[in-house]
């Protein structure tokens, strides 16, 4: 027997040499097959960099697919559930895509780079599904995952830092807008997008520019307290800001083997991304039926009493178990104990009073806590800076 693992060796991103140098804790994780830091120096401080100054997150492992050709828009429209024509050139849209059963396969962002030129930035590998979707459409799909490196530059001072880098008039860029610059003779694209719910940008460059970009960002951002952030800090920020995470808050439909474990957009609180006014899209007929017959589950954001995160908790209504928690965190800025839960219908409407059955352990001593919680209607962290144009000075 060999004691060598059969798992594929983890890859490194184009920023790895710099990431490694800054990863004081040497705390690494596996994110979609890439070696990525869970934390660089202190999870809370990294989180507060995002909220107070600037946090930099290496998002190169995200999958990027370029869709071009005469039918690119029609192709995208059949693929995703929202009306793609409403995403203008040099604009980004958040989107989900479903299988024929109306079950969510993944979520991601759609970058419209030209009239018939889109980039899909997805969490999951989607080569196979995107290829099958080309049947009947004159489009070319190119997997750009390894030819585009990306950094999320998020937080109140992010605009200033990127402006220093040469992104002129970046403060004029509207949320979900795209701006093009050049960096050391190569293209650099900035989108005002992110996963933190605050002012923030994502910077996209060819891998050859990666190390220089990192170096200059941290050099120019020093006075603006720029810090690298790892997956744990981002997790806190995204729960606070109300973003769902594939494989955590829902199972990508293609990965599910057990009956009933997939979720529809309505069941994830993403019904607003489904547009029945546009023509055919994958999942349309199933979702129309669901709309008529009702959903099985409801996605609920819970404000939980106390300060014990309701991780993996059962959610009760009286004595009856009506749901389970998918994500939970004590959110430092909002100073709230937030949980996302899948609640069986008809429970979980906004305002519904439920109970989280929380188990926690101190020095091998387990305690069961029945924490009252209430379904809230919007994310607990809302920064006006996220939506302001021009971007507010810090």
């Amino acid at each position, binding site marked *: 027997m060999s004691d060598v693992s059969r798992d594929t060796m983890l890859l490194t991103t184009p920023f790895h040499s710099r990431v490694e140098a800054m990863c004081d804790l040497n705390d690494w994780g596996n994110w979609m097959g890439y070696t990525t830091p869970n934390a660089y120096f202190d999870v809370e401080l990294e989180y507060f960099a995002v909220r107070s100054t600037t946090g930099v997150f290496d998002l190169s492992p995200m999958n990027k697919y370029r869709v071009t050709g005469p039918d690119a828009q029609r192709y995208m429209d059949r693929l995703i559930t929202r009306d793609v024509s409403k995403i203008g050139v040099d604009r980004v849209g958040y989107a989900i895509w479903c299988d024929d059963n109306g079950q969510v396969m993944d979520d991601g962002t759609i970058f419209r780079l030209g009239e018939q030129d889109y980039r899909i930035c997805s969490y999951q590998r989607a080569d196979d599904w995107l290829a099958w*979707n080309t*049947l009947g459409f004159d489009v070319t799909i190119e997997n750009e995952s390894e030819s585009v490196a990306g950094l999320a530059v998020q937080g109140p001072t992010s605009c200033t830092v990127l402006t220093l880098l040469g992104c002129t008039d970046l403060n004029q860029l509207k949320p979900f807008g795209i701006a093009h610059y050049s960096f050391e003779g190569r293209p650099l694209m900035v989108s005002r997008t992110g996963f933190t719910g605050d002012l923030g940008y994502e910077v996209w460059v060819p891998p050859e520019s990666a190390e220089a970009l990192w170096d200059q960002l941290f050099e120019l951002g020093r006075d603006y307290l720029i810090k690298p952030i790892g997956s744990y800090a981002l997790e806190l920020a995204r729960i606070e800001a109300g973003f769902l995470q594939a494989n955590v808050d829902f199972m990508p439909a293609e990965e599910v083997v057990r009956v009933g474990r997939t979720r529809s957009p309505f069941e994830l609180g993403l019904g607003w991304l489904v547009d029945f006014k546009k023509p055919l899209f994958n999942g349309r007929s199933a979702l129309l039926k669901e709309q008529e017959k009702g959903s099985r589950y409801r996605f609920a954001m819970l404000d939980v009493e106390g300060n014990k995160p309701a991780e993996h908790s059962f959610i009760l209504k009286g004595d009856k178990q009506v749901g389970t928690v998918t994500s939970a965190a004590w959110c430092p800025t909002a100073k709230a104990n937030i949980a996302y839960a899948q609640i069986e219908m008809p429970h979980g409407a906004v305002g519904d009073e439920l109970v989280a059955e929380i188990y926690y352990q101190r020095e091998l001593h387990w305690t069961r806590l029945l924490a009252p919680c209430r379904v809230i209607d919007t994310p607990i962290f809302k920064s006006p800076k996220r939506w302001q144009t021009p971007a507010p000075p810090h």
Partner: protein
Amino acid sequence: MTDYDAIIIGAGHNGLICASYLAKAGKNVLVLDARNEPGGCASTREFAPGHHVSDCAQWLSQFDQSIVKDLDLKAAGLKLGTPKTTISLQSDGDHLVLDGDTISGAGVDSADQAAYRDFKKMVRSFAKLMTTLYRSRPPKLVEQNWTDRLTLMKLGLGLKLLGRERLRDLMRIVMINIYDVMNEHFSHAALKSAIALDAVTGTNMGPRSPNTVYSYLHRATGEHLGQSGTTQVLGGMGAFGRSLATAAEKCGANIQLDSAVTAIVKTEDRVTGVTLDSGEQISAKLVISSADPATTFRRLLGYHQMEAGMAKRVECYRSRSGTAKLHLALSGLPSFTGLSEGQLTERLVITPPMDGMETALNPMKYRELSDLHTFDISIPTLEDPGLAPQGQHSLTAIVHYVPYEPDIGWEAGKPQLLSQLISELEGYAPGIGALITASELVVPSDFEASHGMTGGNWHHGELSIDQALMMRPFPGSTQYATAVEGLYLCGAGAHPGGGLQGLPGRNAAREILKRGAL
């Protein structure tokens, strides 16, 4: 208001049968067909001056007799010949005769004769069970409702009644290949290959391909559908098509020939009608296609009009065939070594031993011409002299192991294959070549062009377990409905599949009426 309650694409036997049942129920039905004759694969054509042949389907062996009664096809002019014995020709002239449950000749011993009786008994019990399934809507296994539960209960009871031994046999063999099953039961090489022929003809398979037991059992259902054996239709297959058309019109259906459907029209979330090659649009509450699934979904509806998962299913649907037809016009009656003149009217088959049949699959797979083929021969002019000029005869043969498109192309390939086939025939009927006054080879791609069957597959898609029953043609589009609202299937691509059976058409009509879709 729509122009019609239902438009049926294709005036083949299933389209006409579906139309008849719907029209009988008072529905306003229009049947459209690109050809200038009704019947689809039940067609007769003059391929040489004065010589008429059934140019696609050759035998009627599994047509559901309840349809003959329901639609009164006899009154509509259907006349069948006498049931045929199968004679497997041997090069030494000592032929193997398969007549019902008895076999004789070719030195077949009593052990094989007994084994053949047992085998037929077993096949009969399995085919009976399948017939139960064939006569009803295929039950879904997951979303059960009472209709499906009842069918499953009947099936369960049938399985139970098979008895422990038989049930075990069925479970064991249904997914495997005919080659292994033949070797298990028999020792006589010609007997094995004569039976294996029925498992591979019309498919893209050889005897060692999985699913060949299923395709064999499929053919064996004929006996339970009330058909008393392999027969020829008097007047040619076209007469069968015409009788169905007459019956359909008597029931009140409208048939419009020379009208090719070029597109299925879909607006919003449902199909609303069709467009003809003339540009005319006709609307209906339902469009029911008896065209094969690839034609229906890929060509007429279009991938962009369906969700991607369905497009993937259509693209993966297997619909190839290695079966061609050989038509010979003969100046006189040929003589086959060891056959009396009276025997020439029977069903004559030529098969290499099973290993040869399997070897012949290779060139076919790799787009080459094989030098071994199987033949399923009919000399229809003996029973029906009107099909050829006085004193002359025609020979038609279903020939297996012909590629869809050989690398050398059919222009060069056809003459080469034709002389190969004739030289193979000469081995059993010396001098037949000299009698040939005209010949024609109809290859799978010709069937596709003339009869619209994708890949030339007469089952409208390979009949294999993964494309059968509740998975026919593919999950999401079963029980005659499709994933597209307002579009139904009633052809051989729907359950229970191909061969001139009529059940897809009849079952589809019943299902549509039962659902109240009209």
